[in-house]
């Protein structure tokens, strides 16, 4: 996408669907959404103590089991993966030329046009 440097559409040029997501660029709104998720999480966590759930497996019925599993499993997987990367990451051309990792995808199989250029005559 070499052409994209001078092609930076303003907010008004975007489709309404894209504008509906432009809040993701505002750090204050994102912060507020994060607080919202945190509040929802807290609510769900408290609810777990008030309401009896069906449980079959050991500890499954313990209040907070799923909340804790969600947080800890996520952290463990991501941190474990980071540690694993330290061990197994190799340069992109490690298997070259017998793999596609360091190859670029053939341009003939793509149609790389920039925003608002898709009304080109051949399209």
């Amino acid at each position, binding site marked *: *996408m070499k052409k*994209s440097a001078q092609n*930076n*559409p303003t907010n008004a040029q*975007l489709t309404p*669907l*894209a504008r509906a*997501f*432009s809040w*993701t660029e505002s750090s204050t709104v994102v912060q507020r959404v994060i607080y919202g*998720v*945190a509040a929802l*999480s807290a609510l*769900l966590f408290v*609810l777990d103590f008030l*309401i009896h*759930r*069906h449980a*079959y*497996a*050991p500890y499954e019925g313990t209040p907070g089991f*799923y909340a804790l599993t*969600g*947080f*800890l*499993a*996520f*952290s463990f*997987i*991501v941190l474990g*993966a*980071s540690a*694993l*990367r330290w061990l197994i*990451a*190799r*340069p*992109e051309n*490690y*298997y*070259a*030329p*017998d*793999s*596609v*990792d*360091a*190859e*670029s*995808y*053939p341009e003939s199989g*793509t*149609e*790389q*046009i*920039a*925003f608002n*250029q*898709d009304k080109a005559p051949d*399209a």
Partner: protein
Amino acid sequence: MMAFSAPIIFLFASVLVACVPARFRAPILLITPFAGLASILWFGMGTHAVVSVQGFELIFYRIDTLSFPFGVVFCIAAFLAGLYAWHVRDVVQQVATLGYAGAALGGVFAGDLITLFIWWEATAITSVFLIFARRTPGAMATGMRYLIIQVLSGVLLLAGLLLHFYDTGSTTFGNLGLVSLGTWLIFIAFGIKCAFPFLHNWLQDAYPAATITGTVVLSAFTTKMAVYTLARGYAGTEVLVYIGSVMAIFTLFFAVIENDLRRVLAYSLNSQLGFMVVGVGIGTELALNGTVAHAFSSVLYKSLLFMTVGAVMYRTGTSKASELGGLYRTMPVTMVCCLVGAMSISAFPLLSGFISKSLIIDAASKKGYYLAWFALVAASVGAIAHTAIKIPFFTFFGHDSGKRPAEAPRHMQLAMVITAFLCVFIGVFPGTLYAILPYSVDYQPYTFSHVITQMQLLCFALLAFVYLMKVGLHPNQIRRVNLDADWVYRKAAAVALPAIVAAVAAVNRRARDVAMDGLKRSMTRLSQFASPSGLLADIWGVNAMVSVVVALMLAILALNLF
């Protein structure tokens, strides 16, 4: 009768596509799946298209409650992939797509092991052209690796079925169980295509090497056909519970750090297969229903995710997370479809993953497989990490790559929106999917417990993501490849090969030396006998001659006694 079976319709269409002018090809790709679906519904439940060859009954069209849902979802996937590939003018890919879909349908509807073997190999031979069609040296090499492993799986299946026939005198494909060497070989053949741990690398190697549209096609068929064959032949085989748990877990770590998003999806596909394999291993009605339901919904949301990443690749030329970011501005439709796929795989309520995954997880805890149950719960969290958050975030949001590509072409958008709609539809109306499962379903996915526990998992996983991003512990996306078990045959074997060749050559030379030495020595011995002064050239007396003749005759007499 056989000519109207769904697999033959697809094969016929694939031959037709090769013969007609270019403008008719894409429409044929769209119409064929409807013809296939119509054939399945028209024939209905039962065993059709039975051919007797040399005393063997070849059953080409067995439609029952287990094969039916797979046949339906394969037709849907073939239609969606055909729509997504509307722009493709490459006849090789179009022929391969139809042939491959037909072969996969053939495998699912095969009623005996010989027919299964034929289609099993056919899927390998047809699908590899979706990789070759990229036409780069890397893709050619990858395609050959893929083909070798797929054909190896077929050879094992053939060996297994011959042994099984020798043991039992039957080639019927029913429940086999791990009872003999033959059934073990068939099990391993299925395991290769189902990407069991250490047999899985062909998947992550090949899928990112295929063409943009080819990967969407590949993701739907081979592995789900293997899940079907496992469910048919090995339901209730306990070892599958443990194999499936390992599959679901270990792939997570590789998916989290992988940079190529199509390979991330390949690992995540492998993890989802783990769920289905656990379901087969448990083998209760609830679990098998879960396996089929999850195969069905996972074909859809995996296709959707491969489509969205493919659309990004079509517009930007790359699927590397390190090169992407901030694309939501100009590709909002693709982004929303990607979010639907992401929420489906993370089992968000009202989406397809929620209503299929929970069947298997519940079956595990009800049957007392608590370890497997926990592995699957953790793998659900993992799906949130490596697919649901990572793919949309690093592609459409996150760090702005500065790329401003145009939205995906219309036909791709349409294919993605239809697939996304199906994911939502199944999630909102689970009864429609439950109605075609192998056993009658007495299951309510939307209970208070289910929804609240799933929301807890999701919310707290999201919080963990936010926390790890804040403190900078979340791995960033860098241009790297990661080693996996395929290192053994791609690097270690290649390095060891010269040494192995040298060792074999040395043994060979030594053996020849020894043989030549022995030969030379015996020649000298012989020439000693035959030389003018040797024993044979000597003049013998009558007594000696008679003694020798008598000895020889006695020897012959003695031999005749036995």
